[in-house]
């Protein structure tokens, strides 16, 4: 097959049985790969009511047909499972070098089921696949695990693993690959930990066949074009922390647990500051021309020490402005700690934000935690992050996430998220389409299922008022569908979302790789099919309109800053139109008619 490797690997951890099966070409055609194909597999096979942290849950590692093909930014994979944080289906994706190794070893997906009796890791050397004892590395942080496994297997091995947070079932534990990249969200690391699976190490030497290499050579020209666009230049130079300036300038930088939209110390934690103080060098994921990654190191004379990657923008928000930490070194330290412990920086930050507000209100006290936790207290935040990952003291409670804490301590309104997952770093009160996106995303407060920055803030393709509901349902639907397709291809959303003609370009690349002509409309249709499939999955678990919510802070408390001052998110109004345009019932359920149209029924 062009694009796909044609083989799915199955690892039944309870019995230790390893098997390989042929990828069904029809499923590949209809659901592509990544979250699309994986959700289809889950819908067909998973006992939906299962405990996400029980042996019945399935954990799928999956790349896409464009991974390692020379199209733009093709170094990604996704982890798809039933989330222990949200209870929904979830997809968490990551770049780095592991995804390319995983694909070139010859597999489109690895499906884990069951639970190993004792800690194991999976070693894949092309066709050779074996489960190995991981007792000696259980408990280790992600960098140590990476180093040890590379020594035990092959110097070219690429490793994805969990840290103590995943082992201890922290509800927002991540899977860290290449010691610094994260499939971070929705607690995929906890699912891996619940299966006693410490790591997956891979070495791949096979090739990915493509139908039309000439067309793919054009990607180098397009990459040049992306890099020369204003945003592209700034992106290459400053990485994602460039967004700190954009969000602050537009008063959508979530600050103090989303109470505000402007962070006064933004200049202390932005891309320029990273270049000045911590940057070692820029780096790219495998097969990516954009190099937005940041290899950093804390200065020798700094209060905190360490090395690693980041922070990325989302962390500048979550563990920076969101908890009022304007000290780049402290923020960077927290980022390293989350990576080493194997924890999502975003939900770690929104959990701390919830907790700091509960503390401010006097609902959580010093004696509950063993220490105070006022806004901006980086030292105690660092202490708490370690306690969360290590399952110590109050860390056990904080490990359950912000929603749990807000409910338990009697102020459910202070959790800033949707479906139990914390929001990303875009304040919806002054870009209300983003609010609709958070409310309707399959896994709640998520920034990768179709960010609305380009249309709402940067005015691409045309001017759009970020404060009103006008055109938002249409825009969010198209962003969600396009993104679903892009992610299913196993590529990074960035270049395609940066370019006005991104959907056209991904359709061309997809056609060139698989050898079947696809138009923009064709790929949007596939995206819509995937998005509806996820909705169908969640509906099967009882999720409806009553779960497509935002906290009252978004819908009732007026925005405090900038042109959006006084604004709130008109969610219900947008939802009505959104469901109608989606072809769903007023309760947000896909109709049979829609499902038939999409070929799902």
């Amino acid at each position: 097959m062009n694009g796909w490797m044609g083989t799915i690997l199955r690892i039944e951890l309870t019995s230790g049985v390893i098997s390989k099966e042929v990828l069904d070409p029809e499923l590949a055609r209809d659901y592509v790969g990544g979250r699309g194909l994986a959700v289809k597999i889950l819908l067909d096979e998973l006992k939906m009511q299962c405990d996400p942290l029980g042996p019945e849950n399935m954990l799928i590692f999956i790349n896409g047909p464009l991974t390692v093909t020379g199209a733009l930014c093709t170094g990604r994979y996704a982890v798809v499972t039933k989330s222990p944080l949200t209870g929904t289906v979830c997809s968490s994706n990551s770049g780095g070098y592991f995804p390319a190794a995983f694909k070139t070893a010859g597999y489109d997906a690895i499906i884990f089921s069951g639970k190993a009796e004792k800690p194991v890791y999976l070693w894949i050397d092309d066709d050779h696949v074996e489960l190995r004892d991981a007792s000696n590395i259980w408990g280790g942080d992600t960098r140590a695990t990476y180093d040890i496994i590379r020594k035990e297997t092959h110097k070219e091995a690429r490793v994805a693993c969990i840290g103590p947070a995943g082992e201890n079932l922290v509800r927002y534990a991540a899977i860290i690959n290449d010691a610094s990249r994260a499939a971070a969200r929705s607690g995929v690391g906890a699912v891996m930990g619940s299966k006693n699976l410490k790591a997956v190490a891979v070495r791949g030497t096979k090739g990915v066949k493509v139908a039309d290499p000439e067309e793919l050579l054009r990607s180098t020209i397009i990459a040049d074009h992306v890099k020369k666009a204003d945003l592209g230049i700034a992106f290459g130079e400053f990485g994602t922390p460039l967004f700190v300036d954009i969000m602050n300038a537009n008063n959508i930088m979530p600050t103090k647990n989303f109470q505000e939209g402007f962070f006064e110390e933004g200049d202390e934690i932005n891309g320029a500051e990273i270049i000045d103080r911590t940057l070692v060098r820029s780096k790219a994921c495998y097969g990516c021309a954009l190099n937005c990654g940041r290899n950093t190191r804390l200065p020798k004379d700094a209060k905190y020490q360490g090395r690693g990657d980041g922070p990325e923008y989302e962390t500048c928000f979550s563990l920076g402005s969101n908890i009022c930490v304007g000290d780049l070194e402290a923020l960077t330290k927290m980022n390293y700690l989350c990576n080493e412990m194997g924890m999502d920086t975003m939900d770690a930050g929104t959990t701390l934000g919830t907790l700091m507000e509960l503390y401010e209100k006097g609902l959580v006290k010093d004696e509950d935690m063993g220490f105070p936790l006022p806004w901006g207290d980086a030292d105690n935040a660092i202490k708490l992050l370690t306690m969360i990952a290590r399952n110590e003291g109050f860390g056990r409670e904080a490990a359950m996430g912000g929603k749990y804490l807000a409910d338990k301590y009697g102020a459910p309104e202070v959790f800033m998220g949707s479906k139990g997952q914390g929001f990303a770093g875009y304040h919806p009160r002054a870009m209300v389409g983003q609010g609709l996106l958070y409310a309707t995303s399959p896994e709640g407060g998520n920034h990768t299922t179709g960010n609305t920055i380009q249309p709402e803030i940067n005015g691409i393709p045309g001017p759009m008022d970020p404060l009103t509901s006008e055109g938002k349902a249409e825009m969010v639907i198209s962003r969600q569908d396009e993104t679903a397709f892009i992610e299913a291809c196993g590529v990074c959303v960035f270049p395609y979302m940066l370019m006005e003609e991104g959907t056209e370009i991904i359709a061309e690349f997809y056609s060139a790789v698989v050898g079947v002509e696809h138009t923009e409309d064709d790929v949007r249709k596939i995206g819509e099919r995937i998005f509806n499939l996820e909705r169908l999955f969640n509906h099967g678990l009882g999720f409806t309109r009553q779960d497509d919510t935002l906290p009252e802070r978004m819908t009732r408390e007026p925005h405090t800053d900038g042109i959006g001052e006084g604004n709130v998110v008109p969610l219900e109004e947008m939802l009505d139109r959104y469901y109608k345009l989606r072809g769903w019932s007023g309760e947000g359920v896909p109709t049979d008619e829609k499902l038939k149209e999409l070929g799902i029924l």
Partner: protein
Amino acid sequence: MVMRIAFTEELCTNCHLCSMFCSLAFTKDGIFEFRPSIARIRVVENGDDTKYVAHVCLQCESPACADVCPVEALAKDPETGLVMIDEDECTGCEMCIEACEFDCLFMVDGKAVKCEVCDDPLCVRACAVNALELTEWDEESVLEQGELYKEVRL
């Protein structure tokens, strides 16, 4: 004049696009595939992720690889000055791999392979940060690149 692929370490981002596109030039039998493991250029990281180094043949003036080859499969082309490998002659003994102190030959499917400088090198075209360049051979830059290769081994 002798041409070679020059590499500037400071610009490299470790994206591996060079080896991906290089491999495309060497796929066979009308099948096009991206298979970095057959590439004639390989990127490696140093231990602490502070250097990324693309190993690609320096086209040495007196190539050690050719000197040790027991079947004379490796030789300098008198016209282009490039070190060329005769795939049919190569027995896969790996002596050239051992002899190259710059780690610029690689084993692929039982045979040694190396960069023989394509006319319009895809690695150079694919490099988005201009870390690779098709340039004229000169001793100073070759020595410098060679030192880097000895420091960050394959």
